């Protein structure tokens, strides 16, 4: 492991100065794009995502009209900007990692949105990742949730996501869980991304890509679920604030 994460044990402070249970700064805005039906801008630390939603509308020609079985079809396009990472990298279209991300978002929102209200139509979610510093899946899920709320597409509840990690791969006693990992920590430590629907413990999305002892998983899950609840409060605040502004704007 090239990165020195060992200082954590001494100071109990992470590389960016956070404690184990601190989220990075989350900043979100709704209705940022005038041309889209719904849009949102979300920052989780240095991860910055713009999401636009268009639809429900008639599907693009040649792709079959809308979804099957009288439900709306959800399409997701993720675009990782060339300047998003530390090094400039142009990703080819059809990159498997991006394809998997798109698949995850599609699946997650197909079961969260009330798609049966829009038969034969398509909802297109476009995500632009402007800056990437960890928590990619979590940030895209949160941004898409806000944009879908802005678009006024009915959904059963907020789908919010958050990552959690652990300071050790091995089954040792002195490993601590960590909340909301940044890019550097993600490269070095095992972590899970958890997406929660509503404010209960219902896990909608769970993705883990690193090797870790089974016993670590439980604490990581608990921490991530707790983080999701905090993210949800922040996002809820953003939505309510936006609603208040809209009402006041309409009256005044």
């Amino acid at each position, binding site marked *: 492991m090239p990165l020195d994460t060992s200082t954590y044990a001494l100071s109990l402070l992470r590389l960016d100065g956070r404690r184990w249970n601190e989220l990075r700064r989350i900043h979100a805005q709704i209705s940022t794009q*005038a*041309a*889209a039906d719904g849009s949102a801008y979300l920052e989780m630390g*240095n991860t910055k995502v713009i999401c636009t939603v268009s639809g429900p509308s008639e599907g693009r020609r040649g792709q079959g009209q809308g979804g099957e079985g009288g439900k709306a079809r959800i399409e997701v396009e993720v675009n990782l*900007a*060339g*300047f998003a990472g530390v090094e400039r990298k142009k990703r080819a279209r059809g990159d498997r990692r991006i394809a998997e991300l798109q698949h995850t978002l599609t699946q997650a929102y197909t079961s969260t949105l009330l798609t049966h209200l829009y038969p034969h139509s398509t909802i297109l979610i476009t995500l632009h990742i*402007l800056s990437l510093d960890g928590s990619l899946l979590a940030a895209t899920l949160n941004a898409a949730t806000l944009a879908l709320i802005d678009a006024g597409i009915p959904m059963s509840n907020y789908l919010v996501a958050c990552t959690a990690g652990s300071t050790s791969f091995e089954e040792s006693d002195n490993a601590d869980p960590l909340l909301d990992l940044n890019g550097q920590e993600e490269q070095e430590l095992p972590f899970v991304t958890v997406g929660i629907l509503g404010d209960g413990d219902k896990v909608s999305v769970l993705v883990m890509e690193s090797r870790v002892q089974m016993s670590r998983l439980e604490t990581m899950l608990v921490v991530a679920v707790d983080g999701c609840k905090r993210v949800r409060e922040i996002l809820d605040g953003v939505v309510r604030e936006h609603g208040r502004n809209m009402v006041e704007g309409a009256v005044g």
Partner: protein
Amino acid sequence: MAPAATSQVLLSPAELSFLHSSLLLQPPVRPDGRAPNQFRPLVAETDILPGANGSARICFPDGTEAIVGIKAEVEKSQWRANLSEDGAHLGTGGGDVEMEEDGGKPQEEASSHGNGEMSWIELSIEIPGFRDDDPLPIFLAAMLSEGLLAGEELKDRLWINRRFHWKLYIDILLLSPPLSYPLPLLSLTTHLALLSSRIPKLKSEQDEDPLFDDDWEASLYLYPKLPTGKRIDRPPITLLVMAVGSNIIFDPSKEELAVAEAVLAVSVRESQRRENDTSGRRLNLLSIRSVDSPSRLTPSGVPNTMNTATGGSAPVSSQDAVAQRESIDQKGVWNPPRGGVKRALITRIIKLVLEPNGVAQEVMDGLNGVEV
């Protein structure tokens, strides 16, 4: 090259005809009430991305929005035999620079000149709903990089030493579907991003492996600022100009483009000036390209003489229809424009763009206000 997305303006022949005739008036009446050389108001900000060397965002009121991020990376130069007059004897290895230590300084100054290469700048455009190899992004990228590469200055500034150079990646992202022809938007955003671009200050000397100052505060602007806050030169901008009759209209909206008789993309650049030069700025024309106007694909109206419902006689064949249309010049019936542009009109457009306090100057000054 008709950009597919902009031709989808769904206007009836009657609406097109109305638009066309109001734009023909002296002075033209534009749908949004602008003067012919007035631009749409725009929202712009720079330095929005901490991870990029330079970045900018511009938002038009119709909702089209673009983000440009510029990244610079150090790259090893390809060794070239005719690097400079004295390059040959030390070209074999970069390490033996010491031998010309005393005379080094002035030479270094001189050698960055004319050493820039086209391949050091890479420009890519991402438009939602388009693939990388679709004509629209490629065409736009070609037009934008053409302007950037036209001058030597930018390329030469990427030169670090004989062995290394900066590679500049310009990534242009259109966030919204291309509602109007996105060229001016992308060009202005790129302009701002380039203005905000900074590269770290070089600490190493001559042909050593480059070492840079960690302090971002000490970094240098890619387009250097004079102590007065003015720039020695600025990146080029590309403006979209259209003509209806003898009227010249700047920054057309998509509805206006649908009735354009000619559409031109004009790239201009401010010429480089010396530090003590106080005479007014001079603008140079870099390139001019005609853009196939989407108006040619619009459906034409049916005049009363060709409509059986109004007592006319319907044409028997399609040739007959063309022949009949040719002979009618009825007001209020939309006929898609055909043919090219008069040379005099192009001259007038260029003049309008380039004249002192002309449109290009105004745009540049406007963008000046956004600066960091």
